[in-house]
């Protein structure tokens, strides 16, 4: 009789466990959804997504929000890193997103509705599971395309396009891009719309380079020219930092994408028509450029292979005599970060 009573007294515990697990799954899914959608994760500076695979054990908590002040606005960089295959399912995610000792199985997904893409990690969903869905925005990257119209309008070609031969005959070809971090931080306070090179990738496309060789060519002044035989060589991309009035070269940037190629190529390199600079936020973070001006200086050389040679050295892209290209909030200069609709779903069982 005593044994029977003792066994019977254990039954409520069993029932309670069965039921509380179901509630627990929903609660864990909710908690995970909040952590991922509303928190930027930890460490925050440098942020966890900058930690490479060797340093991943220093991460304390995942989180995809760009900042605590902007819950529901996710960073593209954090989203990509979160779903990176170098994190192991379920151990790494259990430790840094799900938490708790119970060995939960789960599936976490982010579907970019506007971008039409989706990423997910975890097991196939069973019949019953705890679930939460969060509607979020993903902050896109800012980018700029500097082309022939822009070169002409801003006198970025080192003659005044008068077609006077002496104006073409120049040897210095430098193009400078300014990233004024102080202004970028002060002119836009909201992290959702801020251009923050230390946290978000920025993309600079320089196109129509060949059009800047002998611009405004006038046969009356120069009898014959051959643009196609002039090789444009990108010799270096130097990164300067202006700190307390002192301009110093910090490093070179060695990963430009040339003429639409999918792999970067370090200068010196021959360019046909365009260059893409995809600048990873880690570069700015390592340089500690929080409030400094950063200049990217592209130096070109022209190699004339025309037969017979062109009578003059060609003018080319050069803004050392005018002003550097300013990467700012002006929509005419830079395509501003766009917030895209997305759905985050967390299922736990």
């Amino acid at each position: 009789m005593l044994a029977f009573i003792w066994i019977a007294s254990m039954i409520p515990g069993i029932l309670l466990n069965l039921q509380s697990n179901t509630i627990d799954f929903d609660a864990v899914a909710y908690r995970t959804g909040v952590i991922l959608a509303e928190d930027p994760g930890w460490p925050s500076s440098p942020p966890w997504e900058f930690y490479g695979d060797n340093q991943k054990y220093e991460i304390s908590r995942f989180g995809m929000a760009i900042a605590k002040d902007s819950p529901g606005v996710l960073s593209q960089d954090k989203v990509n890193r979160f779903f990176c295959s170098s994190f192991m399912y379920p151990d790494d995610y259990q430790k840094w997103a799900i938490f708790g000792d119970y060995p939960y199985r789960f599936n976490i997904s982010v579907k970019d509705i506007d971008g039409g893409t989706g990423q997910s990690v975890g097991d196939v969903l069973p019949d019953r599971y705890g679930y939460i869905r969060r509607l979020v925005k993903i902050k896109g990257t800012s980018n700029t395309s500097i082309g022939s119209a822009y070169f002409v309008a801003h006198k970025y070609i080192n003659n005044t396009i008068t077609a006077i031969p002496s104006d073409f005959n120049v040897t210095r070809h430098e193009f400078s891009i300014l990233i004024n971090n102080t202004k970028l931080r002060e002119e836009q306070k909201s992290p959702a719309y801020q251009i923050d090179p230390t946290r978000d990738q920025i993309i600079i496309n320089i196109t129509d380079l060949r059009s800047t060789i002998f611009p405004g060519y006038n046969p009356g002044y120069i009898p014959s020219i051959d643009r196609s035989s002039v090789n444009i060589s990108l010799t270096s991309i130097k990164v300067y930092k202006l700190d307390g009035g002192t301009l110093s070269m910090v490093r070179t940037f060695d990963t430009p994408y040339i003429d639409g190629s999918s792999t970067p190529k370090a200068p010196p390199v021959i360019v046909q028509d365009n260059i893409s600079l995809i600048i990873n936020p880690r570069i700015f973070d390592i340089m500690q450029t929080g409030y400094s001006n950063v200049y990217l200086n592209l130096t070109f050389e022209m190699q004339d292979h025309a037969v017979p040679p062109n009578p003059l050295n060609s003018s080319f892209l050069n803004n050392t005599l005018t002003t550097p290209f300013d990467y700012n909030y002006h929509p005419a200069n830079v395509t501003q970060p766009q917030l895209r609709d997305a759905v985050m779903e967390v299922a736990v069982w």
Partner: protein
Amino acid sequence: MVNSGGQLYTIEGVAAGLIMLLTAYLVVGATSVYTPGDAHISDMQLEVLGSDALAMMDTPPNSSVTESPLQQIIETDDGSRFRNLFLNYTNVSGYGPKHDIQFSASYTYEAPDTTITSPPINSSRNLTGGEHAVRVTKWVIVNKKLPPLSADPPENRAVLVEVHLWRD
């Protein structure tokens, strides 16, 4: 003759009573855990979804756009745009289960004479009272004449957007 038979019956009776009490405790205890827990979680999921939808509708897509879609909707009384956006957000399918969600939305403001008015925005279904609806709200600043027939020029006003939503 007195023997121990009566004593045995007493012990048996007490034991049977204990077992009955225990059974009753088990039955009552088990059911009371199930019901409120489930209903609460389901409400919470719906509430999070509604709050998120309003938050997303109140976020401009980029810095060049000064007003969020929700502000524009209130200012122009564009109920059908609210309906499209809200249903699109709440019923959009990810990888999980589909949600058949209905809503009824209105906004509330205080007129200069301190009367409180709540004009409807739009609804996908009439709220009859039988639904198990949750309520989500969001304060929005709009530049609008309130009340619409007011002689004063439009000014920045805080209005409370209120949405009841429920599963079909």
